[in-house]
């Protein structure tokens, strides 16, 4: 196996994590990853050796996903919660901390563009500039999407009650 393929294979778990989070569906996620890997391998010559292969692969995947979303623009990844945009509408399990299921539902309710930024920053831990490059939007746009996504999800945390809240320094 060539180095290029080996490097690509190393990224599969992270590509799957992102695809899973992005689509909210296991099978669609793996289809997306598969499309991404096939396209990446058929265009390996377009990756510049020495540059970050993860960023390149995520760009490939983002483009495929964006195209698919455009093609089936009536079938978004999630069934949107009509006008329940605010996560406060999601029932909260008091006392036992943040319910991951509620979080998932709230993420599903985010506009796709906010979801992408939130996931790339908070889960993939990419730098803001990397995210801006990847999505081909200005850095200021990344910040405002991140801000809006976080503010909408923060409601969930606030619903978990003070006693569980610890200051994390």
């Amino acid at each position, binding site marked *: 196996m*060539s180095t290029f393929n080996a*490097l690509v294979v190393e990224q599969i778990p992270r590509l799957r994590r992102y695809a899973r989070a992005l689509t909210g569906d296991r099978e669609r996620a793996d289809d997306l990853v598969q499309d991404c890997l096939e396209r*990446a391998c058929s265009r390996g010559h377009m990756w510049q050796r020495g540059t970050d292969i993860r960023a390149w692969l995520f760009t490939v995947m983002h483009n495929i996903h964006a195209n698919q979303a455009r093609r089936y623009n009536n079938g978004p990844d999630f069934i949107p919660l009509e006008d329940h945009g605010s996560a406060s509408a999601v029932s909260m399990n008091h006392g036992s901390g943040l319910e991951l299921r509620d979080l998932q539902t709230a993420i599903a309710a985010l506009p796709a563009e906010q979801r992408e930024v939130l996931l790339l920053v908070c*889960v993939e831990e990419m730098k*803001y500039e990397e995210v801006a490059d990847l999505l081909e939007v200005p850095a200021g746009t990344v910040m405002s999407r991140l801000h809006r996504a976080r503010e909408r999800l923060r409601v969930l945390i606030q619903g978990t009650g003070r006693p569980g809240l610890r200051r*994390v320094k």
Partner: protein
Amino acid sequence: MSHRSEPVTDSELHAYVDGQLDLPRRVEVEAYLAEHPEAQERVDEYQMLNQALHRLYDPALKKPIPSALVRAASPRRWSGMAVRAAVAAGWMLFGGVIGGLLMYETGVEERASLVAAHLVRPAAFAHTVYVPEILHPVEVPGDQEAHLVKWLSKRLHTQLQAPNLSGLGYELVGGRLLPSSDRMAAQFMYQDNEGSRVTLYIRRGAWENTETAFRYAREGNVGVFYWIDGPMGYALVGQLEKSRLLRLAELVVR
């Protein structure tokens, strides 16, 4: 805090949470947070949110990789039909998956320990045995490369090649046949003009049909890059920086 710096913006609170501020500014933001409980609360909540997102999504990192995905990322040796057939075959939880990547899965773990026991460790050991030799580092010297390669190919029942590493300043010293854990192995030795030596260890193994990426292991004071190609396992061993050893490994597979 008597020292007043630039006012802290919303964006900087996010950057603080995401670890994207430089140190001096981070210190200033912390001072600001100490005086602004409502901002501190927001930062805490953002941090809890980050942690929750990881709890929600990180388990996907540890899921076994369907073999179709590994194949999709492999060199084109498979026809589209074969790939689709494999996809249709669905999830193959324990088979056909790359070594080390999935150490959490027992089947793979066994394979990884097979590779460690029969490839990585013997390769590292053979390296440490022969590399310090002044008089007899190899059995057949590099100036008889054609003979050496023909002989080792015959004994290992496969067509071997002594890769050319001169691009990185390493010349073939020669090679030898070795008894490995349960089979024979070939060892090629290379040396640069400063006397640094690396060895390439090749043998057959029961890891057939697995495809692996380059993997790296440390054995004592030597580093080993190893990979599987069909029935053959390869291990490049050296006492040099990982990045340099990797570049050599890349030359080997070229």
